[in-house]
């Protein structure tokens, strides 16, 4: 019940924020030079054609009214059309968002499975050489520009060693992708039992996931280590030691108590990577949502950007809700 009221409160705050985000994006993008009508019609546009299209697009209204119209459409889940792809933004995003989500989710899972154990190991071996190594890993990985690191991985594992598929999207051309259910190639392949597609999609995921995973392990590692440090010094850990509990049990307790911080940093990273993975998406021709949005900004294609911002805002909202639910699950004090 507490959860429900909490979620309700949260949602009340979210609606105005969403409108605010949309408004800022809208105004910002309106300021970008470039007339969408001209771009859509291309070189053969006639003046009448342009005028007609501007009317169709509502470009002849005042900005406020345009925004009102936009909001009205958003409420009806009509995010307009991208002039670049000539497709409705909703269907474009329905294709691209799962691609980004799959990449980001797997990368963060990898980052977690690297960062958390290393953080725990680092925290447990205080002042040891292992801790030094772990600290250096955190600093070094945190310093790598992901787009460059991706290139290095491509160069090593594709160009030189040839052990991974070409960095060209999510699945080979020759492979028939599974019918779309969730949009995640992995899940869809499993659902349809298409193991060939599954293997192939996994192959394509290796490098981008490795790129993002290894780099984003750094913040997770740092957060885990510093929180573990605190938790291992906390009263309950001292008490557990006094009770003669084995070190690993003490560490496990400390880890459990560190989880909220770790989950928080993961959720922050998640929100960041939805748009921030765009560089890696470009390097691997991933065709994700970030790429779509950036292309929209660069080409004055308003609707994809607005759609993307809206999607990621909603996604962040969902993530934060999930995080809260996890908090509820692991910390009895919140119940």
């Amino acid at each position, binding site marked *: 019940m507490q959860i429900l009221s909490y979620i309700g409160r949260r949602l009340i705050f979210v609606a105005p924020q969403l409108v605010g985000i949309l408004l800022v*994006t809208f105004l910002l993008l309106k300021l970008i030079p470039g007339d969408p009508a001209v771009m859509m019609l291309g070189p053969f546009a006639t003046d009448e054609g342009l005028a007609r299209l501007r009317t169709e697009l509502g470009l002849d209204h005042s900005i406020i009214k345009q925004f009102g119209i936009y909001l009205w459409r958003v409420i009806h889940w009509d995010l307009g059309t991208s002039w670049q792809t000539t497709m409705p933004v909703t269907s474009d995003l329905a294709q691209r968002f799962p691609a980004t989500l799959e990449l980001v989710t797997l990368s963060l899972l990898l980052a977690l499975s690297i960062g958390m154990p290393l953080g725990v190991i680092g925290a447990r071996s205080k002042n040891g050489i292992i801790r030094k190594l772990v600290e250096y890993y955190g600093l070094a990985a945190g310093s790598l520009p992901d787009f460059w690191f991706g290139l290095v991985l491509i160069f090593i594992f594709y160009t030189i060693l040839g052990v991974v598929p070409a960095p060209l999207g999510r699945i080979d051309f020759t492979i028939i992708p599974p019918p779309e259910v969730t949009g995640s190639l992995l899940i869809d392949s499993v659902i349809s039992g298409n193991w060939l597609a599954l293997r192939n999609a996994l192959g394509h995921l290796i490098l981008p996931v490795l790129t993002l995973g290894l780099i984003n392990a750094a913040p997770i590692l740092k957060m885990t280590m510093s929180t573990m440090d605190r938790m291992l010094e906390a009263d309950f850990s001292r008490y557990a030691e006094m009770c003669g509990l084995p070190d690993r049990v003490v560490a496990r307790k400390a880890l459990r108590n560190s989880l909220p911080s770790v989950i928080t940093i993961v959720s922050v990273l998640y929100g960041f990577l939805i748009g921030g993975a765009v560089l890696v998406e470009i390097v691997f021709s991933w065709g994700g949502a970030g790429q779509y949005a950036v292309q929209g900004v660069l080409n004055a294609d308003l609707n994809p950007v607005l759609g993307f911002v809206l999607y990621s805002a909603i996604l962040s909202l969902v993530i934060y809700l999930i995080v809260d639910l996890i908090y509820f699950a692991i910390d009895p004090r919140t119940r």
Partner: protein
Amino acid sequence: MTSQPQGVPTLQAAPEEAGRPSASGSWWFFLAVLRARPQFALGYGIVLLIILLAIFAPLIAPFDPQQANPSAFLQPPGWPYLMGTDATGLDIFSRVIYAPRIDLAIALAGTLVSAVFGSIFGSIAGYYETKRGLGTLVSGFIMRSSDVIQAFPVFVFAIAVVAVLGQSLQSIILAVAFVNAPIYLRLMRSQVLSVRRLRYVEAAYIAGTSDLGILARHVIPNAMAPVLAQLSVNIGWAILLTSALSFIGAGVEAPTPEWGSMIAMGYQNIITGHWWPSIFPGLALALTIFGFSLVGASVEVLADPVRRGRLAGEVRQRRGANVAPAGQV
């Protein structure tokens, strides 16, 4: 409990007490810290090197970083092209050492602008947070705006800023500043909120000092330290953002030597085996960010009284009791 003996300092606390660095000899202390923490020394070394390279690039660079020599395109690393040449025959090495001029300048300027404006708005928001009437409105508006900025996908937002303002140095700086400002805003606000509760600030308020006077004289100077610490941590990330913007084509324009745009220019060649045009600038970029994050880590430690204390203790311990002037602690 009826009565308890009081006023005895705890022995457990003693070691930390002892670790307070002396006000004198802070330079000596800094050097000692570098000796005790070689990674910090490494960080300062890298940053210093990069800065020196940027300053003396014209003296060091064997070639003009923007003078294409198409008859020597895509030369592999060797002599005289230490890091090879790119597709237009630009010397990679010269460009790599020229690049920090622009990267550092943008990152520094962007971070400073965001720190200044973020701090100003943060102070205002923090100061008026507890006031009634217009104050709450102002502070609420500032915080909500910052929420909105933070809710944006950072990267898309930065590109949009550049797209709106047109591609120029100023707009990249502004983009960097824009996405970073909320960090300082929140930091400053929380600092101001905590400083405000200090007694002497309350006293000044009661004494009738004006709002602005209190902010300027008492609150801001006190809250500045963590902002400065954040600044050094932030620069590495600002460099990363700058180069990422350039990589995507929304940043520094070719052929201005800049790491991100160099990586982008060389990126298509990687698949045909010409790795050097993009690997070397990336390496320099990573090294620089690494250096700055080490410096940032050291500043974080030095700005935190508790951690600085521990470090100081360690430093003195290493130095050995016999070297320490008697009675220093």
